[in-house]
């Protein structure tokens, strides 16, 4: 049964059914997620009061899992914007059913990513020094520092994506308001900003949405380029490279799409919306993943070629070491999971099998996490001065906080799915044939 066989009312009911008052199972999961977050918070508190020494970081390797997580989550965020904004501009119809959750994912992923720059600070209680605020001491942040660019980029991204997210939501919140009762109604009423669905409103709405789509699109490129410059602007062999911006953007979308799969497949099952999020949609994403996978694979190859071709011994040594040294395992996980496994999607049977899609999606997520890990750790562990070469092994605290971040992300997403329409009612309707009165049956 395809989307187009639905009626307006069915769409409404289908989507809004997700918003019905939760059942035990829901609270169960909620509690579970909360406790996972709790673990992370405890670990962080411990780290703050004891010192960064509770991590596995050391002298050559000053960054590890935390920055990996940061890049990973920012990467996740991007596909959201890609799906909602860029595909909107390209009028890719299949995006309709999933863009809402993709957007939500963006906002929550950025919210998660934003934590890690704080977590990795040695003296987090002074984090506000990173913001430009006027003071009698005439002290300002150093705007040449990639880290400041980072702060600006991420905060911008958060603002724009959440505004975009909210605008998209408006009509649906209104729809929810119309169905809901009691306190929920009041809340929706406030959130819907008195949306009436008049023609004038729809007109402005369309314009505004288009505008933000256009505004968000370049951010996908810019933000992750800036993130990549955290590394590219340094002088460390393995970091200092012009390929990084495009390489990271592609990687971001790659991991993002994989994450969308990982989330949507259970979602559509749990909320029984297979009719809206159809196999075709998933398949379309699988095709995108093939593309991004190829780009990422190409980037890996290029890096190696340049490392050898440049004749720069530091560059050459670091890449030789990556593939053969202490971190070879991590490295090959990254290569296989990110650039080889996606090729399986060339097989139609695989890319149309939900199970396969789900499994491969998760593998790609893992692979992308390791990509960041390998880039960050190996480059630092093995740079210019042989005496200073070192080794880094993450500590329990770092694992706990990473785990917590996943808990945090899914907690947000989970509560969103219950509280706000996870699928765009309005845009789904746009795909349907206009309702025609026939013997007063449909309506």
């Amino acid at each position, binding site marked *: 049964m395809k989307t187009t066989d639905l009626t307006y009312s069915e769409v409404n009911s289908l989507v809004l059914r997700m918003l019905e008052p939760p059942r035990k199972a829901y609270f169960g999961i909620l509690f579970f997620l909360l406790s996972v977050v709790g673990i992370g918070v405890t670990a962080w508190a411990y780290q703050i009061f004891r010192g*960064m020494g509770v991590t596995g970081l050391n002298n050559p390797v*000053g*960054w590890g899992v935390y920055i990996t997580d940061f890049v990973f989550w920012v990467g996740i965020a991007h596909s959201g914007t890609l799906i909602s904004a860029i595909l909107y501009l390209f009028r890719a119809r299949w995006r309709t059913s999933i863009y809402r959750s993709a957007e939500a994912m963006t906002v929550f992923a950025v919210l998660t990513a934003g934590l890690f720059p704080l977590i990795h600070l040695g003296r987090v209680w002074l984090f506000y020094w990173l913001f430009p605020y006027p003071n009698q001491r005439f002290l300002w*942040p150093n705007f040449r*520092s990639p880290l400041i660019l980072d702060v600006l980029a991420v905060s911008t991204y958060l603002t724009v994506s959440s505004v975009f997210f909210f605008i998209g939501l408006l009509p649906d919140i209104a729809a929810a308001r119309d169905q809901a009762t009691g306190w929920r109604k009041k809340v929706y009423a406030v959130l819907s900003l008195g949306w009436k669905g008049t023609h004038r409103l729809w007109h402005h709405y369309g314009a505004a949405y288009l505008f933000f789509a256009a505004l968000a699109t370049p951010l996908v490129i810019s933000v992750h380029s800036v993130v990549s410059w955290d590394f590219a602007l340094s002088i460390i062999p393995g970091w200092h490279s012009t390929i990084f911006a495009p390489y990271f953007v592609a990687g971001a979308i790659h991991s993002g799409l994989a994450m969308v799969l990982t989330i949507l497949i259970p979602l559509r099952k749990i909320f029984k919306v297979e009719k809206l999020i159809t196999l075709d949609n998933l398949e379309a994403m699988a095709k995108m993943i093939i593309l991004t996978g190829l780009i990422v694979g190409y980037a890996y190859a290029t890096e190696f070629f340049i490392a050898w071709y440049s004749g720069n011994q530091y560059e050459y040594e670091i890449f030789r070491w990556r593939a053969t040294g202490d971190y070879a395992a991590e490295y090959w996980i990254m290569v296989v999971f990110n650039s080889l496994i996606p090729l399986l999607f060339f097989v139609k049977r695989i890319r149309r099998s939900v199970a396969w899609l789900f499994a491969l999606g998760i593998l790609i997520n893992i692979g992308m996490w390791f990509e960041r890990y390998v880039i960050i750790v190996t480059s630092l562990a093995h740079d210019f*001065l042989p005496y200073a070469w070192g080794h880094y092994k993450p500590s329990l605290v770092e694992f706990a906080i990473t785990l917590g971040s996943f808990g945090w992300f899914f907690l947000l997403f989970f509560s969103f799915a219950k509280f706000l329409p996870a699928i765009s009612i309005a845009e789904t309707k746009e795909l349907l044939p206009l309702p025609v009165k026939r013997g007063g049956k449909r309506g």
Partner: protein
Amino acid sequence: MRRRDFIKLLGVASSASVATSCGLTPENSQKLIPYLVPPDREIIPGKGMFLSTTCTECPVHCGISVQVRDKVIQNRHRQVPIKIEGLPGHPINDGRLCIRGQAALHRLYHAERFKQPMRREGDGQFAPISWEEAYQVILQHMAKVKSDQRKIGYLSGRTTGALAELMDSFCTHVGVEKLPEYEPLFPASVVNASFALFGRKELPEYRIDRCDFLLSVGADLLETFGNPVQNSRRIAAQRKKGTFRWVHLEPHVSLTGLNATQRLTPKPDSEWAVIAYLLQRVHQSGRAKKTLPGSVLQEVPQLSIEKVEELTGIPKEKLQHLEESFFASDRPLTIAGGVSTASQNGAFLAALTGLLQWATGQVGATVDYTTAVDYSSVGSAAAMESWLKELDQGRIGVLFISRCNPVGTAPQSWQLHHRLKKADLVVGLADLPDETTALCDIILPVSHSLESWGEVSPRKDVASVLQPVLDPIYETRTEGDILLDLYRLELGAAETVDYREYVQKRWRKASSSRDLPTLMQQGYYSVSAEKRPVRLRETRAANLLRSARPQEKTEAAIVYFPPSLRFYDGRSRRLPLLQEIPDPLSSVSYGRWIAVSVATAKRLGIRDRDELRLGIGEWETQIAARIQPGLPEGVFVVYRDQLDAYPVHHLNPAGEPLSFLSGARLEKTGARVALPILSGSTSDHERGIIAHFKEEKESKHEPQVQMYEPHEHKVYRWAMAIDLEACTGCSACVAACYQENNIPLVGKEEHVRGREMAWIRIEPYYTGEEAEFLPMMCQQCDNAPCEPVCPVYATYHNPEGLNAQIYNRCVGTRYCSNNCPYKARRFNWFDHEWPEPLSWGLNPDVSLRNRGVMEKCTFCVHRIRSAKDAARDEDRLVLDGEVVPACAQTCPADAIVFGNLLDPESRVAKLARSGRAYHVLEELNTQPAVTYLSPHKKEGE
């Protein structure tokens, strides 16, 4: 004023006041403690006071100048030492100091120091008692022992000067037998030889500064042999002259060997053959300045060069080359010692060396007996055995053991821990617990030399002064006072002279002309040593040669137990700072390890950190492996101070314990040891980090174009030049830096995790058999990679070219450290504890860094600040050489030069222009302020 401006103004004003008001913390708890009565010597708050005294970390006795600060401790003003430096103009070390001397404060402030007299109770535990009680117990036992005609023995480490004199009179008057002094590193063979040959129980002063060719055999000149500080200083000075050549023969590998112009590794215990060969060639070629009498000559084995090659394994052409350069030089110097004389044929080797010195006219020229070190009172291990027999027969009732640890350092097989029980009462005079004090019945805590008056004589012709720089921290007394107390109590002598008056009286006699204050300041006075000419005593020489015939056996799997640079004979191994600083050869800091040659490691499949079971005879131990380039196949090294007892028992004819064991069994246990190896690699991977000197200085990299305007420095551009030719890797600079900059000691676990905190470190880089040592610290780059990445300007380029690090601004992103190609930055992973009294030694000019903050070398910016302050008072600029960072100050080889690069006449500027100048990782265009001077390529094997 227009309205808009006014509003803007308001905006700024209000936001500004908000900004300032946040982060105010009440600090009202502090107290302001006045003096009760201002101290007699005027103290300027915040300024250091420098007192001259003498270092007693080892028998060399360098003169030191101790910086004392006035601090408020437990609501009382107190003058405490915070830093030790060499005393300029002192004949022994002239302003320089070694790693152990720099660490002396860690003995003074050691947590485990004996704080009051203690007595062992029935249960074997020590219980504190008062001095009076302790004396009572001792006197009672002495009385008893005397009554039943037994002996009272007094064993001490090497003792000289006032204390030796006092000890002798004490022993004679009180009826105590002074046992031969015990010095674990006593070069018995050498002293024995010079006694036999020249009638001197002395170690001559080796005037490296007078020779043009140095042939050293086994003597670890840079670690423990003779006067390491002066040796390295003189070697460096000679090298600067250019014509100097230095060949070192050693069967294992040592810091000394790796620094020699050429290092030859003869088979263990075959060194004598080389000297014998040279000696006979001297005579055959008629080059002898003094021909040896036939009676002696016939005792010198006649060896063909092939025979020598066979015995030593040194290739023929190398021997010929050695012979040529030895004869080519007109002022040669031959030194035998260390592991080579502490061996079966060592006595013979020492004798031959003495004869060679005599025959080639070194004696009186480069081998100087007028300034020798007197060893007449020190006994060999053999001498020790004789009184131990008495002990066994119970003829020694009371035994004093002072300032030495025979149980921990004497041959294990002597079973001292059993035999000491034979005495009714063993009285230990010590500052720190060790294997010996553990067996004592009474422990009398001895004051640290920095708390004591005294006088030692490091050389025949020099008397060095000790004066207290602080009041004793605990209930301790100086050995002199203890002797005087016992003396008084035993003989009921009326006159109550304490040790202070005793030495001062002596000084007034010795240096009547000079008044005490100036003497105190100068720190030493010279003694007129008798100058009778050195003559060769034929018959005794012949006898010695006959008695000590060399054995021509080739042994396999040999383990050497040399003393180490850091812990000397083991007496320093409990000092935390010395454990924190890695051994320069292996870059291992904490723990114990066995050095395995590259070849052997390959053969047995041994990797670093593998646990090995090392067995020799019945002796066995588990120990971690560390692969050591430059070590000959089949030879292993374990520093003797890493063992709780000395496993060797065999003595050579001169009564010196051998320095090695043969027939070692070595197998992997399969376990891995968390051994803190601080270097990531022992090779520089052809990265030009060590750039050996080439005549045609090809500029590897033409200056790159820059995006940013270069920094302009107006008055000062602080810079440093480090001469790798001179640097021996002795690590004294590292210790000095730790002490000067309040660098925390983080311990083994942190080192294993790779979190060393040293601001300056010695990086060993091996190429084949040779090594160069590279002191690495913050390079204060002009294009510093760390600066642009710091988000809060905690690090920035200051107007004087320093790469400033403002600790309290740092938020701890660690990006600066990531981006530092020299990895010279250190992050504070935790807060650090400074328990009392260790905290007394903190330098108030340098702030303490707490957790989450990045720290690093800043060229001792506080010293720069005070120098500028002084200059400002006199309204002038800082002079060249006025600012001396702690590392440069202590460097025995004078390898580090600091100054202002903008002053073309400054030493550093000249060196930076020299042909040997280069920068590490020059191609990165970081433009460091630290210039390294290329070393010359070693000649190698």
